[in-house]
């Protein structure tokens, strides 16, 4: 039996990220057609024991590495991508829940712990001789043949094509069902970190495909590191949101350790691990706690930026859609950041501390650079910095009573006012704001005080039967309240007049970003936001068509939808042409393929539920 050549772990590689932990073995795989004497080329086979970690690194970027694993007795239970897709419900493996890669017998073989690329393939074979033959390259090395070569010493029978998990292979399925591929999204040093759930024989390739974009026409090395068992690596997905911002791995908020005590159902959202529902509780109970009593949620995914300087007011007044002239210290205003063609860059709240100090709370890491860019272009003296504050939202009809017991001054806060105070000695900023449509507050805190604040609020809310609330219930509540979500109701091609935020645009301001474009759009936006109440219980989904009643043509599409328990109705937010936006207009929502079933719906206000707050 031959084994892959191990590199001494004392060797230093300067072309890849430093080790994440205690390395027990590492291998450099030359590109598949390199055939370097005494060095592994094309593919390697290697053993790992349960609990060890496998890091597969794309050294130079844009390089695929196909992966096989064999568990069970005598390596009889291979990794199976179809089983994995079926059990995880994911086309592409990812870190989080679910994250395991399963065998043919449905046993977990490995688990994705970290992934800095996020785009892989689980549908196609590792490249085969047949592929190259059909393309006019008979005899071209292939990953499948390379796997056959390195697996033969282990008694594993050859196959003309290996069904592998193809890391960094950038494939997609289009609307017509065709599978396409393109240059990988991976950058130099991108990696996938796997945890072995059992003793495994693994094989990794450095794909030799140089005849198409699969490796950018230039195959490059793959590096495999094995880490010792017993180490802890934080789970994370890498996110790149802009070319000028670094990769960001999913992080915990200051409240996540407390939340993990109550649920294992967390998902990546905008760079953070956020709870979806809480164990033994469920989104229904969370929803009703919010609507009838009180609920506590972690909204630390919101980005906070401090805007300071003599021209701070000039910047926010020019970049933000609202007129902030009358927003005094201690007040905030909801609106949006705009781009020059009137598209919504982000929505959020500007808090005023003084004319030379504001805080913007929104959704995007890119907001800082956008605000800085505007300030620079205008020659304004102002600094924009990200602020590391995490925040909880305490929402619901009992929220005032709960919070007033801790901070009596809260009773004086009007809508969109804020104060700085303490909760049991913990410094907090409390604003009367929220994302649920209910009476509610948000509490901003330094990360080191997060756990204490969570505990204090959970304890204070016990008598009111406060529940922690996850994203599923929050999404239902925000749709009922007609509140917008980035990527659903708006993006940078959507104007505020289309998204339902026309009321938040101060056209009387002398000038602001996007004003000229919005002057033209406002009188007849291509579509306008409305609420729909559907006949029957079926729930629509984002992107489904809205038809004129009884007609064959579309008049809009659904942006968000849910079943509203409080209204006992299926509701949706939609964007329709202005001619069909009047309240009471009858339309039809196309479910399934838009043809098989149409459900009648009635146009109404964007906010289907608007309690007194």
């Amino acid at each position, binding site marked *: 039996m031959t084994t892959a050549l191990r590199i001494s772990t004392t060797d230093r590689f300067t072309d890849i990220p430093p080790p994440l932990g205690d390395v027990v073995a590492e291998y450099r795989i030359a590109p598949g057609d390199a055939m370097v004497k005494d060095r592994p080329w094309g593919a390697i086979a290697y053993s790992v024991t349960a609990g060890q970690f496998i890091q597969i690194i794309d050294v130079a970027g844009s390089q695929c590495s196909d992966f096989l694993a064999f568990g069970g007795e005598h390596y009889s239970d291979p990794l199976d991508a179809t089983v994995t897709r079926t059990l995880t419900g994911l086309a592409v493996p990812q870190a989080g829940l679910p994250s395991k890669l399963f065998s043919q017998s449905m046993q977990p073989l490995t688990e994705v712990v970290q992934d800095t690329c996020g785009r892989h393939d689980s549908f196609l074979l590792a490249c085969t001789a047949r592929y190259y033959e059909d393309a006019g390259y008979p005899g071209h090395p292939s990953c499948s043949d390379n796997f056959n070569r390195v697996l033969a010493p282990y008694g594993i029978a050859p196959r003309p094509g290996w069904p592998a998990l193809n890391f960094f292979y950038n494939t997609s399925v289009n609307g017509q069902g065709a599978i396409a591929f393109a240059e990988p999204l991976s950058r130099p040093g991108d990696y996938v970190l796997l945890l072995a759930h059992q003793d495994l024989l693994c094989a990794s390739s450095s794909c030799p495909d140089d005849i198409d974009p699969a490796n950018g026409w230039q195959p490059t090395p793959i590096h495999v590191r094995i880490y010792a068992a017993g180490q802890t690596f934080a789970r994370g997905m890498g996110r790149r949101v802009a070319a000028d911002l670094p990769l960001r791995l999913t992080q915990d908020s200051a409240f996540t350790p407390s939340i993990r005590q109550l*649920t*294992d159902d967390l998902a990546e959202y905008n760079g953070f691990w956020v709870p979806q*529902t809480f*164990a*033994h509780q469920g989104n*229904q*109970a969370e929803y009703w706690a919010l609507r009838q009593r009180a609920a506590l949620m972690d909204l630390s995914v919101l980005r906070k930026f401090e805007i300071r300087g003599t021209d701070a007011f000039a910047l926010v007044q020019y970049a933000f859609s609202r007129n902030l002239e009358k927003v005094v210290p201690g007040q905030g205003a909801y609106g949006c950041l705009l781009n020059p063609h009137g598209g919504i860059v982000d929505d959020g709240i500007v808090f005023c501390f003084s004319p030379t100090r504001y805080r913007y709370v929104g959704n995007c890491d890119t907001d800082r650079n956008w605000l800085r860019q505007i300030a620079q272009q205008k020659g304004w003296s102002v600094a924009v910095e990200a602020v590391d504050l995490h925040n909880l939202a305490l929402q619901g009809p009992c929220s005032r009573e709960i919070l007033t017991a801790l901070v009596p001054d809260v009773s004086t806060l009007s809508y969109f006012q804020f104060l700085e105070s303490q909760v049991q000695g913990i410094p907090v900023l409390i604003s009367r704001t929220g994302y649920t449509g209910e009476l509610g507050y948000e509490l901003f805190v330094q990360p080191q005080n997060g756990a204490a604040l969570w505990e204090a609020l959970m304890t204070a809310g016990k008598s009111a039967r406060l529940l922690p609330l996850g994203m599923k219930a929050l999404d239902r509540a925000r749709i009922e309240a007609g509140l917008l979500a980035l990527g659903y109701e708006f993006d940078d091609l959507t104007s505020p007049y289309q998204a339902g935020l026309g009321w938040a645009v101060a056209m009387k301001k002398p000038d602001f970003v996007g004003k000229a474009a919005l002057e033209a759009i406002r009188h007849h936006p291509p579509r306008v936001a409305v609420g729909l109440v559907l006949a029957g219980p079926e729930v629509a989904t984002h992107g489904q068509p809205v038809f004129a009643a009884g007609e064959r043509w579309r008049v809009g599409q659904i942006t968000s939808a849910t079943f509203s*328990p409080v209204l*006992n109705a299926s509701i949706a937010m939609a964007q329709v042409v202005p001619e069909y936006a009047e309240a009471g207009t009858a339309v039809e929502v196309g479910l399934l393929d838009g043809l098989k079933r149409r459900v009648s719906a009635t146009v109404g206000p964007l906010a289907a539920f608007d309690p007194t707050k």
Partner: protein
Amino acid sequence: MNAGKLTQPWDMAGADGLVAARALFGEAVDHLATFQSMETELEGLPCAVLRLCNRNFRLTYLGPLDRIVAELQLNLWVKQLAWMGTVVLPNQSSTIPLTAQDCSPILAQASVRAPHRLRGLPLNCAVPAQIVALPALIWHHPIEGQPALELHLAKAQIENLWRLIQSFSDGSVSLTTAHT
């Protein structure tokens, strides 16, 4: 251990599953999340309602649920699943212990897949689980007023479960199984 009368559950599901449940049991049924249940009455008879999905429900009910639902003229099916059996482990506390050491031997052998949690499972909650290698739905709810564990599993596996339980308890356990 012993238990009282047990019925073969009714299952109902369909596009109008929630509409039917609300018509039968009122708004309270829509306060249930998936795998949560409530005890109620239907036409004067006790009824336990377990929500399995948005529009799927399982009920223990002695009356003719199929006839009652048919009168609603809605789009859903109602049946007693011929291949599914029910076993009851009586006299469980109102919350399943937080640690395996504190559990009954059979529960100590059960595992669940994330994000489900078996430990600390309160009353009126259920969880899909594997008891050693036997797949079962463990439903923690009152039966005749007493907290109990109702296990739903393939009828073909009931004998295996029985043997498993006896192996943990030196043959001292008597089970109640559902009558179809």
